[in-house]
């Protein structure tokens, strides 16, 4: 904690962020929307059916999906303005002439933009207690789900940060970050489904229906799609799960943490002023 507070950039970013009123409004709005949706559905559900405690997983799935959508929506946006924002405010040059190394700047920026969204997720955890009332999930499931969210947050944060370092303007950087995030969330799934269909069309005798997903390459692809992995964590199956050497969520976690490492390293490289100045790429 002491080392954390000794990092000047983190202190500065926290001061800046938590002095803005909008920060609290967004947090409040987020919790309000999540709570309203959850309570609304609970109310509607008990109107036309009798709730059987212990057998109602839909609520859990619903709240997880909403939360995941929020993460996809907020995490890239929060970090897509960090470096380009400094550049636009014309404070980046000065920052780079201090003793803060580009690596440290990147890490601090990532940490501070993620701190806020972690705050959002953690402050929404009490909402899950409603879900527990109805059961259908185990604490272990919730734990893996939170871990899964954490990996996603870190990855999308690094993605936004990378765009922010690479692209000069915050606006363009945010759009690019959303585009890339869309590819990872939806695109990987489409690629997986398309490949499966293609294989089945080309070699029908080799792959009887449904069997194609036993192919290790396709399993890898499926494990890279966050939506698929999340539904597996929630106990649903979008594509049939094969027997792989690791559970899909673990493959997902390892791969995405690896991607995160690459993005952070690349951002650090791009931020080095003398090896390559940020404006070079625009020409």
């Amino acid at each position, binding site marked *: 904690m002491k080392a954390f507070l*000794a990092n*000047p*950039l983190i*202190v*500065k970013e926290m*001061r*800046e962020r938590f*002095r*803005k009123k909008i920060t609290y409004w967004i947090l409040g709005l987020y919790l309000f929307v999540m709570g309203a949706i959850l309570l609304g559905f609970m109310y509607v559900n008990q109107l036309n059916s009798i709730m059987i405690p212990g057998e109602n997983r839909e609520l859990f799935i619903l709240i997880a999906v909403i939360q995941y959508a929020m993460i996809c929506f907020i995490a890239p946006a929060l970090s897509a303005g960090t470096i380009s924002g400094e550049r636009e*405010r*014309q*404070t980046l*040059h*000065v*920052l*780079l*002439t*201090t*003793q*803060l190394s580009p690596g440290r700047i990147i890490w601090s920026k990532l940490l501070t933009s993620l701190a806020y969204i972690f705050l959002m997720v953690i402050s929404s955890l009490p909402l899950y207690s409603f879900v527990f009332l109805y059961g259908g999930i185990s604490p272990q499931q919730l734990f893996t789900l939170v871990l899964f969210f954490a990996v996603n947050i870190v990855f999308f944060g690094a993605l936004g940060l990378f765009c922010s370092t690479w692209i000069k303007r915050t606006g363009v950087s945010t759009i690019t970050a959303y585009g890339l995030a869309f590819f990872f969330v939806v695109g990987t799934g489409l690629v997986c489904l398309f490949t499966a269909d293609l294989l089945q069309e080309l070699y029908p005798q080799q792959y009887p229906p449904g069997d194609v997903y036993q192919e290790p390459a396709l399993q890898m692809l499926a494990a890279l799609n966050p939506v698929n992995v999340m539904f597996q964590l929630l106990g649903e199956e979008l594509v049939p799960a094969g027997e792989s050497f690791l559970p899909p969520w673990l493959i997902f976690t390892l791969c995405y943490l690896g991607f995160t490492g690459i993005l952070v390293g690349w951002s650090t490289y791009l931020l080095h*002023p*003398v*090896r390559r*100045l940020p404006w070079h790429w625009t*020409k």
Partner: protein
Amino acid sequence: MIQTVHLTKQYGKLEALHDLNLHIEKGKVFGFIGPNGAGKSTTMLILATLLAPTDGKAYVAGYDVVKEPKQVRQALGYMPDFFGVYDNLKTAEYLDFYAAAYNIPPAKRKSIIVDLLELVNLSDKADAYVDSLSRGMKQRLGLARCLVHSPDVLILDEPASGLDPRARIEMREILKQLRGMGKTILISSHILPELAELCDEIGVIEKGRLIACGAVEEVSAGTRGISVMQVKVLQSHDAARTVLQASPYVRRLDDKGSHFRFQFTGTEVDKAVLLQQLIGAGIPVVHFGESKENLEDVFLAITEGVGS
């Protein structure tokens, strides 16, 4: 303290700097003069380790800017021509952030910040938010910012641009104080009189080439044998102008109403002849001499014909 050797920078095909050789000694104030786009900021960016030179070497405090950027940054305070501030911070917090960014321990920061705010006359603004400061105050805060780690070398890119006359004078007084502290300062400007009384030496840069360099008087004497003259007459203003215009050595005659300024390309003898001509024409001359203060004339004289 600052040295560049055959420094060259190309942006694509555009040559922003060509074979620049500068040498600035410890404790000297060096004025870097040139029109917009001459390459001043480019030179300063390279010295501040923010831009890679295409060719050549640059040293600050004995360290190579490309190979030893960390040491260079520790020895250097750099103020860009345009810079922003963090709006949501208070003045003291703003300086505290940069002090921490230079790894100064928290115990020392407080006294440093108090001293710096005192130096730039912002002591009463320590608790004000940065975005409530005026342009001149922000500029002074920026100057304080580049002093937090007490660097020996200061590189200031047009520190007075965009300031009103009063703010300009305040800035100049602070710079004089810094000179008194023995800092080596490289300061640029496209407005010349600003630098005249502040600098020990000036370098004139145009289209990426250093075309004159040395003490202020030296540069004005120039290798081209041009001097700037001032002539004041009591009456017969028009007749005086006719005589001056007729002289083959007079260039860029500037009629200021009360007196004339012009560049004189002839020898001392030619000067005497010109004075005799004026007197011979019955014009009451009250002043006839070289003018030293105005760097603008020097600059125009030196940059005449460069690059064309």
